[in-house]
């Protein structure tokens, strides 16, 4: 029983890291533009397909596939922002939300048209290995995912908190006009934000493609939702929060399965999410929107 629990813990951590990985870029864009970027999931999907196509065509190695997918989604993200979001910057957040939904419908049906609706497997880009530690196992995929998520979180957090560009990003998120008056090139900062965020989505797409061995035109929806949930649970815009949120949701799902409630697995995760929010209404790491009156 005990090793079972340890094993489930590893399972939960690995799954949670995937969610965290998807949520990192999401929370960043989300925190800075203040919009629910619904197309994020589709960018993730696009990245996964880009990685797949690269991996299939040229017998390239993991790194090339990863890098290529990242670059492609970076461009995609910036283009989407310019076309579909920028004109809506001054209008209601919800207008941008609907525009994002339009983009996401477009992208997924585009992919159905181009690549067909069925799920595709992923070629092995590197050999999976299994390590037995005591009574439980951990695969090299899991180690990579957990490691990459952790490193990216750290890097991104440092970047946003301490770099000049990062500070400009936060300024844009809090008061765009004032940011302009400080000499921030808001368009550029937003493009950078989208580029980084979307690139992360693309990389996450490839990694989760490798990990789950499945790529599908509609995979973005669920991924986007999980990322949204993780980002909010962790506190909107908080990068360590996204990591914690992702891990918590992953662990909650596996916990649901472990206690024989697998048919309620998603409900389980969302119940925990709602409960946490009731006690911490702005997420685990979220700063209370403490605007003084």
């Amino acid at each position, binding site marked *: 029983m005990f090793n*079972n629990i340890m*094993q*489930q813990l590893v*399972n*939960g951590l*690995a*799954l949670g890291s*995937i969610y965290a990985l998807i949520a990192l870029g999401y929370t960043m864009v989300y925190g800075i533009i203040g919009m629910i970027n619904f197309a994020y999931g589709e960018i993730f999907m696009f990245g996964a397909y880009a990685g797949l196509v690269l991996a299939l065509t040229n017998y390239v190695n993991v790194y090339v596939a990863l890098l290529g997918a990242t670059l492609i989604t970076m461009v995609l993200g910036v283009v989407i922002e310019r076309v579909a979001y920028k004109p809506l910057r001054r209008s209601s957040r919800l207008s941008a939300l609907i525009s994002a939904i339009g983009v996401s419908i477009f992208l997924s*049906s585009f992919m*159905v048209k181009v690549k*067909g*609706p*069925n*799920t*595709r*497997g992923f070629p092995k880009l590197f050999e*999976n290995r*299994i390590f037995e530690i005591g009574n439980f*196992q951990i*695969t090299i995929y899991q180690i990579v995912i957990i490691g990459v998520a952790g490193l990216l979180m750290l890097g991104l957090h440092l970047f946003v908190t301490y770099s000049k560009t990062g500070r400009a990003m936060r300024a844009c998120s809090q008061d765009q006009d004032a940011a302009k008056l400080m000499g921030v090139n808001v368009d550029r900062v937003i493009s950078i934000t989208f580029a980084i965020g979307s690139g992360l989505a693309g990389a996450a797409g490839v990694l*989760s493609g490798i990990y*789950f*061995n*499945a790529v*599908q035109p*509609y*995979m973005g929806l*669920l991924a986007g939702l999980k990322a949204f949930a993780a980002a909010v649970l962790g506190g909107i815009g908080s990068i360590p929060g996204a990591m914690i949120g992702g891990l918590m949701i992953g662990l909650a*799902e*596996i916990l*649901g*399965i*472990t206690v024989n409630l*697998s*048919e309620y*697995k*998603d409900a389980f995760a969302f119940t925990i999410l709602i409960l946490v929010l009731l006690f911490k209404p702005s997420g685990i790491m979220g700063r209370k929107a403490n605007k003084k009156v």
Partner: protein
Amino acid sequence: GCGNKPAPTTTPSATDSKEPIKIGFLGAKTGDVAIYGLNTLKGLNMAIAELNKDGVLGRQVQLVEEDNAGQKDQAINITNKLISQDKVVAIIGDPTTGITRVAGSIANTKKTVIISAGATGTNVVEIGPYVFRDTLLDTIAAPATMKYVIQEKNWKNVALITSKNNDYSVSLSKIFSDAIVANGGKVAIEEFIQDKDTDFSGQITKIKAVNPDVIVFSGYYTEGALIMKKAREVGIKAVMVGGDGLQGDDLMKIGGDAVEGSISYAGFSPEQPTPNTEKFINAYKAKYNNELPDLFAAQGYDALMLVAKAIKDATSAEPEKFKDTLAATKNYDGVSGTISFQASREPIKTPVYLLEVKGGKFALLKKVPIEMK
């Protein structure tokens, strides 16, 4: 309600007219279950091409295809459109049981024949005299499969996995689990997943603990493949057994080695074909650049051919007339097997094909003949 007027009787174009006979296609071309719809459509197009060589009652057959994206409200709109606007005489129904039920009841009230080339669940033909299907029923095939697995293979310790948000899987699991008990096996653990899940590590960890002889999974092939990948990864040796939901080349494309040896049943196999089937397979390969037809393509083809035959036999393209000739079909030699309709209009298809994944392909394991009562 106050708005319930008797449905206006459709006035199909006069029998002697040379206008094409219109057949509607209802199914998903986009959305999650698009793959089933698209393959059905391929089979249909084969049939159309063939029928139009000679025509039916001297008329051409024309297909009106619409995409319901797997959504019920769209399916309703389409069914209405096909009947009232396109004036089709028959609809080749959606491959899934759920939508067939909804579309079936509309078609039935509007007196248009609907025949599903994929629905295997319950409560379909009961809707009324215009509703048909040409599929291998789960209630027949699943017990036959379990009998083989438990009695011939002697795999008694079963782990059962159900996709909880998939109606097909939920009903099929019930049939499987009854059949397991009836044949002397035991459901050692029952686990649940959901369609579109990609992580099964939690369930597999639990399943490993009971060390099953076989994993029975009642859902679709994508999840099936991913489950088996995970199972092999943690060292489970048992093979997977499932229903026609596992039919799809993607099972092997995604699952690779992990699904080797998996067993499933289907109303069709391209192996050991009858001459009729062989002809179909060759034509299909020629048309769709060497792709092998699958269950849905074959059943779609048969569905349209059945309708065409009924129209010919009735010498009328009026649904009211040819539905009875259709219902009277016995021992029709289809490409997907021999099809007979019982008095209840429920089809009996023989044989049940048990297929095993071998070398990355579905290979015929056994043909289990079914007696018509």
